């Protein structure tokens, strides 16, 4: 029987009513099951949807960050060429020919073989065409193995923190490890690293500047194997940097602070100080955030006692998640930055906590601040208890100019050793005073542990191309202008 248009309309209306009533019933049941109160409904607002919600920023994974600080390639005839990880294919390659690939293959070999060797054996085998992957920060070899292959065999527990992972054409079936306890090890490879041999041979013949041990320029009695370039043509030039945020821009600072306190931000005590500093305080100092006038953010949180400590790599995951939640490695204005691991500390608090310090790079060079690091983050008992970030934005193109001859590093030291000596004296970094100028020079050259170049900026927000001379086992960095060798500033770590 055909329906009239009126009957059709009634049927359609009934269908709509059924749908509406069904939805209502489901919602009411949800209120019961989820125990949603009337107050919750009343207090629901757009604010509650948006407050505390942040877009996760970018932060590289552990595998991309825990990599060698540099590669030193030698052809065995004297002199090393240094390469940044981004400029060579020495670590990981798609074909599986990098050092990390070889290490992974070695770890997955059954049975895995590692043996201790002597320093003499190590030095001898690397005195031919070889490559050293140098780690400037502390990373237990077992943790490196976990990162490289997903697990660490029990045999690698005997190895301390890695200082060098090396490969030599004199023993293509092995990898060599130097640890922070002054011990040396040989790892057996399942097959020879023939491709890496050819690759490093190419690198050893490249146009990159040659580095020699500093003691080859000093007297016969000097013993310091820190590498220094004989001559350097560099393209680095000074450029302007902008601090992360303007302390007067309250809206930006509030936006950054919301990320730290999320849903509880409305109940955070905010103190705007006359100096321009803004302090956010939650509870009775349980969580504090300071947005300083120099564009740094510093966050502290009390660790709860009932939490258990976590491993170093687990702590890194927690730190990474936290950094991502705070916008990642990007300035408040959204400029993405390039981080690297500057230093790490195991058990910094005596409770198994881990500390990570990140620096920034401009191209393949380090961009240092003479008073703070880009990110410092501490994880204690599975929680982030301290975080400090000091970001700058800049135009990377303006950092590169025409190649110019830099003042030779050894001449910079000869010109400024008194300055370095005085800084070491002022900062109590010397065990005893020198007797005479020759002794001062000797003390300074003995104390040097690294000579590199990059950019340094200070309060004037100008990043200057600089020689970076590291002394006192990393306790002091002194900066000199790259081309003139003039003293710029220094930093006690």
């Amino acid at each position, binding site marked *: 029987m055909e329906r009239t248009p009126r009957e059709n309309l009634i049927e359609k209306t*009934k269908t709509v009513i*059924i749908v509406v009533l069904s939805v*209502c019933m489901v919602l009411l049941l949800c*209120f*019961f099951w989820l125990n949603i*109160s009337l107050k919750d409904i009343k207090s629901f607002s757009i*604010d509650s949807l948006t407050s505390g919600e942040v877009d996760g920023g970018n932060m590289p994974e552990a595998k991309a960050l825990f990599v060698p600080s540099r590669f030193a390639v030698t052809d065995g005839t004297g002199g090393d060429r240094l390469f940044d990880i981004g400029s060579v294919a020495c670590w990981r390659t798609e074909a599986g020919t990098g050092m990390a690939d070889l290490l992974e293959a070695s770890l997955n070999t059954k049975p895995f073989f590692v043996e201790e060797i002597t320093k003499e054996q190590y030095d001898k085998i690397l005195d031919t065409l070889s490559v050293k992957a140098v780690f400037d920060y502390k990373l237990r070899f077992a943790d490196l193995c976990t990162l490289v292959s997903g697990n660490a065999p029990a045999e690698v527990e005997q190895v301390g923190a890695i200082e060098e992972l090396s490969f030599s054409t004199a023993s293509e079936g092995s990898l060599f490890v130097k640890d922070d306890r002054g011990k040396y090890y040989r790892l057996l490879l399942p097959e020879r690293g023939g491709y890496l041999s050819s690759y490093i041979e190419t690198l050893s013949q490249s146009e990159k500047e040659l580095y020699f041990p500093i003691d080859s320029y000093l007297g016969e009695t000097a013993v310091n194997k820190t590498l220094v370039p004989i001559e350097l043509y560099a393209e680095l030039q000074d450029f302007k940097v902008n601090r992360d945020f303007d302390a007067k821009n309250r809206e930006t600072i509030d936006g950054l602070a919301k990320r730290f306190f999320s849903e509880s931000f409305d109940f955070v005590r905010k*103190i705007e100080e*006359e100096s321009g500093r803004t302090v956010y305080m939650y509870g009775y100092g349980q969580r504090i955030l300071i947005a300083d006038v120099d564009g740094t953010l510093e966050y502290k949180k009390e660790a709860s006692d009932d939490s258990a400590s976590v491993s170093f790599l687990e702590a890194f995951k927690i730190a990474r998640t936290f950094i991502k939640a705070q916008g990642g490695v990007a300035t408040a204005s959204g400029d993405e930055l390039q981080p690297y691991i500057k230093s790490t500390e195991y058990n910094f608090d005596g409770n198994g906590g881990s500390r990570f310090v990140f620096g920034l790079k401009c191209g393949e060079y380090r961009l240092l601040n003479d008073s703070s690091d880009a990110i410092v983050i501490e994880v204690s008992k599975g929680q982030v208890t301290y975080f400090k970030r000091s970001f700058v934005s800049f135009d990377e193109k303006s950092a590169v100019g025409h190649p110019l001859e830099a003042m030779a590093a050894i001449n910079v030291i000869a010109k400024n050793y008194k300055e370095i000596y005085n800084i070491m004296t002022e900062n109590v970094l010397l065990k005893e005073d020198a007797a005479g100028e020759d002794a001062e020079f000797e003390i300074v050259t003995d104390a040097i542990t690294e000579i590199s170049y990059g950019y340094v900026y200070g309060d004037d927000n100008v990043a200057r191309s600089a020689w970076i001379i590291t002394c006192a086992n990393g306790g002091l960095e002194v900066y000199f202008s790259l081309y003139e060798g003039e003293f710029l500033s220094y930093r006690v770590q």
Partner: protein
Amino acid sequence: MDWTRAKTILIAALLMTNLFLVLMYVSDGGGDEIGIDCDDVVTLLETKNIFLETEIPGTFPAAEVLTVNHIEFKDDEIAALTEAVKAVPAGADDREYIKSAKEFFEYMGLSCDYLYCTDVQRDGDTVALEYKTRVDDIDVEVSHMVCTFKNNKIQSVSGNWFESQRLSKKKFEALPAVEALLSFVSDRPEQGPITIKDIEPVYWIGDEYNEDVGFLSVTALPAWKITYNDEKTVYIDAFKI
């Protein structure tokens, strides 16, 4: 199958179910928490050797967080302004002193909406007016000011003054005083018998104010101020997160 009749029956069933659910939800108090009985709390306090000498207030009388500005008193500016204000007539009563002080505060650029005179002290030819910042009948702790008259003329204004700037748009869920008392019990400030003399709602700027640092503004959070034993005080947050 007669779909027309089936739909009608379904609509009726759904209507009844929804009605039943709504009634259940409303009679259940909308999922709200069960209230705490004041008498039970008093009994509990007494078993813990804590005695109440005051009534337990109900809910917090406001639902916003307050931001206050710190006002710095500069002696040279105050000295210059005192010249502009007329002297209070000899033998004036408290109201006239308060009126004269208010006029002076207006010269200073203070907002008189939140000035509250709490006491007038007389000592010979000196009259001291004590003020607090009060917003919607709630005191701002620890904002205070003393305006001193000498020989009927304003001599000085001193204190640590915070002026109301704005109330938050977002409202908080207040913690009843009775729950603040339970918190007081769990974080008992001292051993031995405790006598609670007063429980009052305040806006609290915290203990962090430091004259050397100097504040421009600070958030004053709602808190219950519990005064016990010899005028000792404890502040307990009066909001739930």
